[in-house]
């Protein structure tokens, strides 16, 4: 495997892709997000329990490539316990990390290693949608 590819499929990303900690339904969810890419069929439902302007708990269910699955798992992990207003800026930071046209170097945007793991997506524009799929849904959630 070449270095470019190794960079995309970092251990961290693969670990999240294989980890089922955040997988499943949330029976007491107050909101759900649907993330779907009709071009490839990747599809996730993200279940949220929102109380007093914050995400108390979250889980996801669905199917997709390692990149989209890991990024969904990381989204879920990062938003649990967060106020909705802070989620908005978190999502903006992540989408900038993976944006190959961004003026900012990824490491100047965040020090969060889980988010930075996706910076290599900048080298694979065709996989950007995989990384952003669930985050785009979160950006548009209008809660």
């Amino acid at each position: 495997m070449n270095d470019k590819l190794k960079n995309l499929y970092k251990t961290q990303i693969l670990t999240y892709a294989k980890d089922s900690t955040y997988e499943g339904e949330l029976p007491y969810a107050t909101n759900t997000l649907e993330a779907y890419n009709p071009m490839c069929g990747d599809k996730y439902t993200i279940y949220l329990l929102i109380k007093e302007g914050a995400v108390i708990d979250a889980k996801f269910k669905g199917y997709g490539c390692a990149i989209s699955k890991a990024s969904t798992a990381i989204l879920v992990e990062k938003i649990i316990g967060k106020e909705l207003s802070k989620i908005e800026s978190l999502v903006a930071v992540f989408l900038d990390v993976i944006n190959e046209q961004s003026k900012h170097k990824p490491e100047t945007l965040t020090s969060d290693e889980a988010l930075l793991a996706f910076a290599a997506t900048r080298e694979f524009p065709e996989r950007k949608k995989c990384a952003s799929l669930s985050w785009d849904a979160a950006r548009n959630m209008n809660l």
Partner: protein
Amino acid sequence: MINPKTIRAQFPIFSQKTPNGLPLIYFDNAATTQKPQSVIDAISGFYAGYNSNVGRGTYWPATEATSSFESVRAQVKDFINATSSKEVIFNAGTTDGINKVMNSHLLPHLNAGDEVIVTEMEHHANFLPWQHACELKGAKLRMVPLIDTGDLDYKAFEAMLTPKVKFVAVTAVSNALGVVNDVVRLTKMAHAVGAKVLIDAAQWVTHKKIDVQALDCDFLVFSAHKLYGPTGIGVLYGKTELLDAMPPLAYGGGIVESVTLEATAFRGLPHKHEGGTSNIAGVIGLGAAIDFVNGLGLENMHESTQLLCNYAIEKLNLIDGITVLGAPKERAAVTSLTVDNAHPHDVSAFLGEKGIAIRAGHHCAQPLMDKLQVPSTCRLSFGVYNTIEEVDQAIDALIEVRNFFA
């Protein structure tokens, strides 16, 4: 037996390197084939040498353009064994051909309560137009199921056939699984209840010789770009009496004898159905593609690609963690597979970095993916320039991916 290595030299794309500096190994021939130099030269030769509109100009180069254009029509007639060149209508491709038959032939004849039959393995191009027609007219769209091997359930099809069935649209070869359908039998069965039949020959055109008279199908469609020809050009074959009875597929210039406010008299076949300026360069390119195929011999091409496909499947079937989908009676040089724990897009990204182009996705056949209970697959499809060594490299890469995601 043809030699892929010498054929390869005729395709300039293989002298390119991928962005990683590797040779291109191209296994996405079911999506589109690469183009030989002769096709590229024919297209640029038209633009550089005798560019003009066709049909009406009485000057050179219009005369030369028209005669080249019409000679390709005759070439296509022979290629598919139509009874007349009038039965060969040029269009933008398979999708365009199917939509035009739906609009111009089926819609005027379809009534509420009628039925249209497609199969579970159709490409969306041979599914959505019929679904649209049925929704519009209150007709019922039915789907012939597959059996476990991936073959069509012919008994189920027989049971569906009643006088209510007005139209049957079926692919000759599944673009996702490579399953070859017995279109002669299907056509005969459909005709027994008076239904008209359209055959989607997009994948078949490089598989075996098409003989529309032997098939007795009412319509048949294919694209040039899966036949080593250019994109944006395709062929609609239709039986003369059906094409004659149909209103123009597209209204525009070049299709009339005379026009007044009260009445328009249309030209005869095939011009009635080719409104507007055709993709002339595309037609010229299609002619060169047919020359290329005839030069190699369709049977030789079939033998070569089939050998690669069978070899790949035999090897893949021995590998734990890789599953080849379907085991049909007859398969064209296309196969779908899945790798345990690895999503097809991850697999194709891995192979892509090694210069190996395979297709991952639902292959525009979502009803089929539902049937197979997979969201998507990896597909390898073979062309005349592919070699055994390339197949080995692809299989080694698939094993590497399997190990990585295990």
